[in-house]
C-alpha cells in the first residue's frame, strides 16, 4: 500500500466521519445556558437581599348600638394609651393612671409601659381591646414600637392585640 493510497483511504474515512457527525448535529445550548445562569444568579442575589416583611394589625373606631341586654354585662375597660411629648399616659373607665415618663436618654420607656399593661391585663383577663392616641408630631416608628409594647409582654403573652386608633389626635 503506497503512501498515496493510505492518504486517500484516510481522507475518505474522514469525509465519511464528518458526514456522520453532521447528521447527528445537536442544538448549541451554550447561549441559552448563559442566559439562564445569569437570570438564576440575579434571582438568587435578589432573594438574599429580600427583607422579611410583616404587618401590625390595627383598625379605625367603629360605632355600634348597645347590646340587646339579657346577660349581665361586665363594665368595659376602655383602655387608652396616649403617647405624649413627655411620655405615656394610660387611661381607662376607672380613671387615669400615673404617667410613664421618658427615660433620661430621651427615649420612651416601652418596658415600663408593658409592665403597667401587664398589671392591667391581670385584672381584666378577657379584655383584648385598647385605643391608641398620640401627639401629632409623634413619629410612625414610635407608634409601631408602642403598639408592640401594647400587643404582648416580653414572654410573648398577649396583652391588648386588638388596637383601635382613636378618632382625632391630641
Amino acid at each position, binding site marked *: 500500500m503506497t*503512501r498515496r493510497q493510505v492518504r486517500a483511504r484516510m481522507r475518505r474515512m474522514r469525509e465519511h466521519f464528518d458526514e456522520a457527525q453532521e447528521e447527528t448535529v445537536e442544538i448549541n445550548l451554550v447561549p441559552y445556558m448563559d442566559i439562564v445562569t445569569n437570570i438564576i444568579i440575579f434571582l438568587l442575589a435578589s432573594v438574599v437581599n429580600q427583607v422579611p416583611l410583616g404587618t401590625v394589625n390595627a383598625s379605625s373606631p367603629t360605632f355600634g348600638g348597645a347590646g340587646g341586654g339579657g346577660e349581665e354585662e361586665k363594665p368595659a375597660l376602655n383602655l387608652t394609651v396616649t403617647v405624649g411629648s413627655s411620655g405615656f399616659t394610660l387611661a381607662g373607665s376607672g380613671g387615669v393612671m400615673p404617667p410613664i415618663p421618658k427615660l433620661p436618654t430621651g427615649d420612651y420607656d416601652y418596658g415600663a409601659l408593658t409592665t403597667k399593661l401587664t398589671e392591667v391585663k391581670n385584672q381584666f383577663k378577657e379584655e383584648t381591646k385598647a385605643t391608641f392616641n398620640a401627639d401629632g408630631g409623634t413619629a410612625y416608628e414610635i407608634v409601631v414600637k408602642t403598639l408592640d409594647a401594647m400587643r404582648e409582654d416580653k414572654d410573648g403573652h398577649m396583652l391588648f392585640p386588638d388596637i383601635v386608633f382613636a378618632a382625632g389626635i391630641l
Partner: protein
Amino acid sequence: MTAQAVPASAEVSDRLKGKRAIRSYARKLADPEEITSLNITPMMDMMTIILVFLLKTFTSSALLVNQDQNMMLPTSTSRLNAKQAIAVTVTKRVVLVDGEPVAPINSGKIDPALKRDGDNGYYITPLVEILSRVARKEKKVAEMTGQKFDGELTIVADRYTPYRLLTEILYSCGQAEYANYRLLILKGRE
C-alpha cells in the same frame, strides 16, 4: 531468488504499515481521546427547574417594597406575615395608592388645597376618591365570588411619618370604607 524475495517482503511490510496506520486512524476517529464537547442537557434541565422555582417564589411573595432615603420601614416584633391587599404608601414626598401618586407631601404635610376642610381637616379628597373607586371594584368582585368585602388595606409608611399625617391618611381610608389596616413593618428588633 534472494534478490527477488527482498522486494517482496518490503512490499508486504509497506502494506502492513499502511493498514496499521489506517486502523489506528479509524480508531482515533471513532474514539477520540480528547473530549471535544460536554453533554450539557442534564445541567440545562436542572437549571430550568431552579429558574422556574425561583420565579414562582418571587411571584408568590405578597409585597415588594423598595426602600430608599424617602421610604424606610419601621421595625417591629410582630410575627404576622404580610398579605396581599391594596397598598397605601406614604413616603417623605408623596402618598401613593398601589404605586400611583395621589398627593404630594411637603415637610410632613399634605397641601391644604387637597383637603376638603383646609389645613386642619383630615379628609384628603384625591385619596378618598381613588380608594372609593377601588372599594367599589373590590365590592363587585366580592359580590361575584360570594365573599365578604373585608375593607383591609396595607399601610406602607416611612418610619418618620408624623402621627398627624398618618391619622389623616387613616381617616381618609376610613371614609372610603377601608377600616382595617395592616401596617407594614420590617420583622425583627433594632
